[in-house]
């Protein structure tokens, strides 16, 4: 009986723990388009700032200012860290998908990334069908590789894929001419292009190959915490502050290079904001296929 009680305390709901301790353990990313560091222990980005505003709302609920403990997470450790309670929630670049929903919960989707194609403007490539006989770069360890293979089969075209070891490497393949196109999430393409020597030489073209709903991730079976996050996000959508935040991080010049990503709000994200939901990526792809 006593043991059970202890267990209950250990797995106490995040909200109650946050209230009693006055500290929120926030998971942040250090090099993603939506959340990154500018050095010196400062974490910024669209999703990081959104999370800070969520915590402001939590402070109001708790009736006292909460302290934020920033905890850097990676793609590999984010799910275990949320599961074991090291972080209360994280807002970075985690795709909400069915496989992850078995282990964790997601707040409502705040950004929908569209997988598209970056090319050199001089190449004349306008859509995926123009890629016939070309070489396409894509980053190892991403789901885009599979989407691309599916699309290749679906459109009955034939192209060579080269897999870069990370996004920077894939973009280098495109820049150096070893590849004719780079297929990846729109936000990553925009960020890569903004960092290029001549951003004007590159363009993002073609149809949307797939969409990735990105959302804040929290522990499973913690409905109160999820409700608190969802309410704060819905509030931010409703009063327009999220749109302002989007403009700040995607249309205006941002640190560290003071270059703008120039990535207008896409249709999928607009739809997600119009009807806030926590549907996994699978629910989107079936819709894409139906089109």
């Amino acid at each position: 009986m006593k043991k059970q009680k202890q267990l209950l305390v250990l797995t106490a709901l995040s909200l109650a723990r946050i209230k009693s301790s006055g500290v929120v353990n926030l998971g942040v990313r250090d090099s993603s388009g939506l959340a990154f560091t500018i050095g010196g222990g400062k974490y910024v980005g669209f999703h990081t700032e959104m999370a800070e505003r969520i915590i402001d709302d939590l402070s109001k609920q708790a009736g006292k200012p909460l302290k934020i403990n920033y905890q850097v997470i990676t793609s590999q450790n984010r799910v275990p860290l949320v599961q074991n309670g090291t972080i209360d929630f994280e807002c970075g670049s985690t795709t909400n998908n069915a496989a992850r929903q078995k282990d964790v919960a997601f707040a409502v989707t705040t950004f929908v990334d569209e997988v598209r194609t970056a090319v050199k403007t001089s190449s004349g490539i306008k859509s995926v069908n123009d890629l016939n006989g070309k070489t396409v770069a894509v980053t190892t360890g991403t789901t885009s590789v599979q989407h691309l293979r599916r699309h290749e089969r679906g459109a009955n075209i034939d192209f060579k894929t080269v897999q870069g070891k990370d996004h920077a490497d894939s973009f280098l393949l495109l820049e150096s001419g070893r590849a004719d196109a780079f297929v990846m999430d729109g936000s990553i393409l925009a960020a890569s292009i903004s960092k290029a020597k001549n951003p004007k030489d590159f363009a993002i073209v073609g149809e949307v190959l797939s969409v990735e709903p990105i959302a804040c991730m929290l522990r499973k079976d913690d409905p109160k915490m999820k409700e608190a996050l969802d309410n704060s996000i819905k509030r931010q959508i409703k009063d327009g502050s999220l749109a302002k935040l989007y403009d700040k991080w995607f249309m205006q010049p941002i640190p560290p290079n003071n270059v703008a990503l120039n990535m207008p709000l896409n249709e999928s994200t607009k739809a997600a904001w119009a009807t806030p939901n926590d549907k996994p990526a699978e629910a989107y792809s079936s819709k894409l296929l139906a089109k």
Partner: protein
Amino acid sequence: MLNMDWQVFCQDTLTGDAVAGCLGSGRDITYLNWIFTAWGWTVSVSLTALLIALLVGSLIGVIRTLPDSPWLVRLGNAWVEMFRNVPLLVQIFLWYHVMPTLVPPMRDLPPFVLVVLALGFFTSARIAEQVRAGIQALPKGQRYAGMAMGFTTFQYYRYVLLPMAYRIIIPPLTSESMNIFKNSSVAFAVSIPELTQYAMQVGEETSRPIEIYLAVTVLYVISALVINRIMAFVEKRARVPGFVVAGTGGGH
């Protein structure tokens, strides 16, 4: 804890559906087909690089021991120090990204060739060092005996020194040959679709990284072990009765 699902290898790489018999056909391949293709890349990169490493390594190792050719010896020393002192991954990037900008015709070379050259030359420096050690381990008298027989330099290396030197260095050569298989994983950094890249990609696609990494590990172990056994066989067949390694009171 050990909740593994080995059926993942029977899945089609596009649909994720299980395929009867585990092997797909034509363009419909399974993850099992794919891992064999990846293994093929690993083996081709390693064996081609090993061949280059043995040829170049032997040549450089020999010229470092030539008497009366100080410039050739210096060239050999420079080669060894250059390729031995720069990290392998850095060398791969130099071959892939830097050399083609300096020497434009290299731009058209396939990445496979560049990786094989990088890995082969890197390993050649280590093999050259072993060949030199093998030759220098022989008593000076063997060289003089060869000369006294009226052999040219080429002849006494070919018929007197090298046959014994190679026998001495078979054990470190075995290690080097196994190393080249493991080092071939850096080819992943320049987009060769070999086993390491397979592991990173398929682990993500299937969400079963443990099974994938275990399978890839087993294939690396098998590859290295086959080389190990081949070299052990060569060592046994090439053994000279009565000749103990290094020829100087060893054999303990």
